[in-house]
């Protein structure tokens, strides 16, 4: 079965970079470019092996990172000192992106018409996904990290081969739903219980992404360090 998870609902390359910078707790003005580039490429590999369709933007960023990494290695960079730090090429867009996230935050905290406040005769309704449950609190990359921990059986996830024949995403979607019907609030790891091999783990993970996409599952992480939890959003009896 040809199955692709659509990523456009989720994040872009700058989100992945920010995720890595936060995760490694590094200074945005002194990004360890070599290690960040390696980790970035690792994610792309993993996403590719999960059959996620990776937007071209991710590849453009990958080549930018590699380019910067190679420029950092060029000899004679220290002589003039006038030459700009090659890393500024990503620091600038990252700063702008952080600023932008801040702007979006400012806007969404306002008293929004049709959400917080109401006026006579106003029909403001721009719910983008009318049937969709709350947006996930957890980013795609946090989910991938959690999945990686589940998978980490010493295997290099970059090399895993996936055969989707034995398990179908559809079946796994149903079994996750069944699990959540029994227990409406579970830990991320629990959906993988009983999975036998890597391909089954992968299909379960894809099914989870699909359920989040459909808004049937709410994903949240009470704090940075705590485990990711899942809860059901389909209590009205639909699917």
């Amino acid at each position, binding site marked *: 079965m040809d199955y692709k998870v659509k990523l*456009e*609902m989720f994040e*872009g*390359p*700058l989100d992945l970079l920010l995720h890595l910078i936060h995760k490694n707790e590094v*200074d*945005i*003005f*002194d990004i360890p470019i070599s290690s960040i580039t390696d980790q970035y490429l690792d994610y792309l590999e993993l996403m590719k092996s999960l059959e996620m369709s990776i*937007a071209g*933007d991710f590849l453009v*960023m990958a080549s930018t990172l590699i380019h910067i990494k190679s420029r950092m290695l060029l000899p004679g960079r220290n002589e003039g000192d006038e030459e700009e730090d090659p890393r*500024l090429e990503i*620091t*600038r*867009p990252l*700063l*702008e*992106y*952080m*600023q*932008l*996230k*801040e*702007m*979006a935050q*400012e*806007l*969404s905290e*306002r*008293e*929004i*018409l*049709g*959400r*917080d*406040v*109401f*006026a*006579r*005769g*106003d029909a*403001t*309704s*721009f*719910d*983008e*996904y*009318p049937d969709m449950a709350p*947006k996930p609190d957890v980013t795609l990359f946090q989910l991938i990290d959690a999945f990686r921990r589940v998978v980490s059986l010493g295997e290099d996830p970059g090399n895993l081969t996936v055969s989707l024949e034995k398990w179908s995403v559809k079946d796994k979607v149903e079994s996750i739903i069944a699990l959540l019907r029994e227990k409406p609030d579970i830990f991320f790891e629990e959906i993988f219980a009983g999975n036998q091999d890597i391909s089954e783990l992968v299909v379960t993970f894809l099914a989870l992404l699909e359920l989040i996409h459909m808004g049937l599952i709410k994903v949240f992480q009470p704090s940075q360090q705590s485990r990711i939890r899942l809860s059901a959003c389909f209590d009205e009896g639909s699917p």
Partner: protein
Amino acid sequence: MKEVLREGRMEKQLELIIESLLFAADKPLRVRDIQGCLPDTGLPEIEEALETLRHEYDTMDRSFALKEVAEGYQIRTKPDYAPHVLRMTKRSAARLSTAAMETLAIIAYKQPMIRHEIEQFRGVDTGGILRTLLEKNLIRIMGRKHLPGRPLIYGTTRKFLEVFDLHSLESLPKLKEIKEFGIGEAQATQTYENETQAKSTVQEDAVKTKTEGTDSES
């Protein structure tokens, strides 16, 4: 003494008339809209009456307030009652995805902007999101830029101001400095300022082309 009383009553009368207009209106009323219904009354008196009404509602501790949005005045319910109102209207709360919110934010703060500039900020394709925002009437096409391909220029609408409880674009919240990363902050601000300067030059271009661009808009 009688005169003072009479004047007081007239003021009260004016407030009540304005209140009735606000009560019945289905969109924010500008001061001049109100004046259109009260031809013998001056703008300052109307503004004063609006101020009194706003103060009155606040002190009465009601479920609604008089808000200044999109250069007008509108009576709106307070956020505390949102769940109940939503139940009554049988609608889900207005909600935008993070991606849409970010796109809208760039346009709001940096307008006018073309799609390419927006995408440089977010690092991902925004075609679908722009279409959604246009459909929701939160952004509008302001014209075309004098660049190869004559790209469309986007800006926010009056509806945007109404939805986000803004009097005008100038009342957009000021941005906090990025402090999260401590070290190198000075450098950051500097870099950022250079960037913004470069950006605003581009924007001026866009503003210049705006007027003629609008004509060629089909």
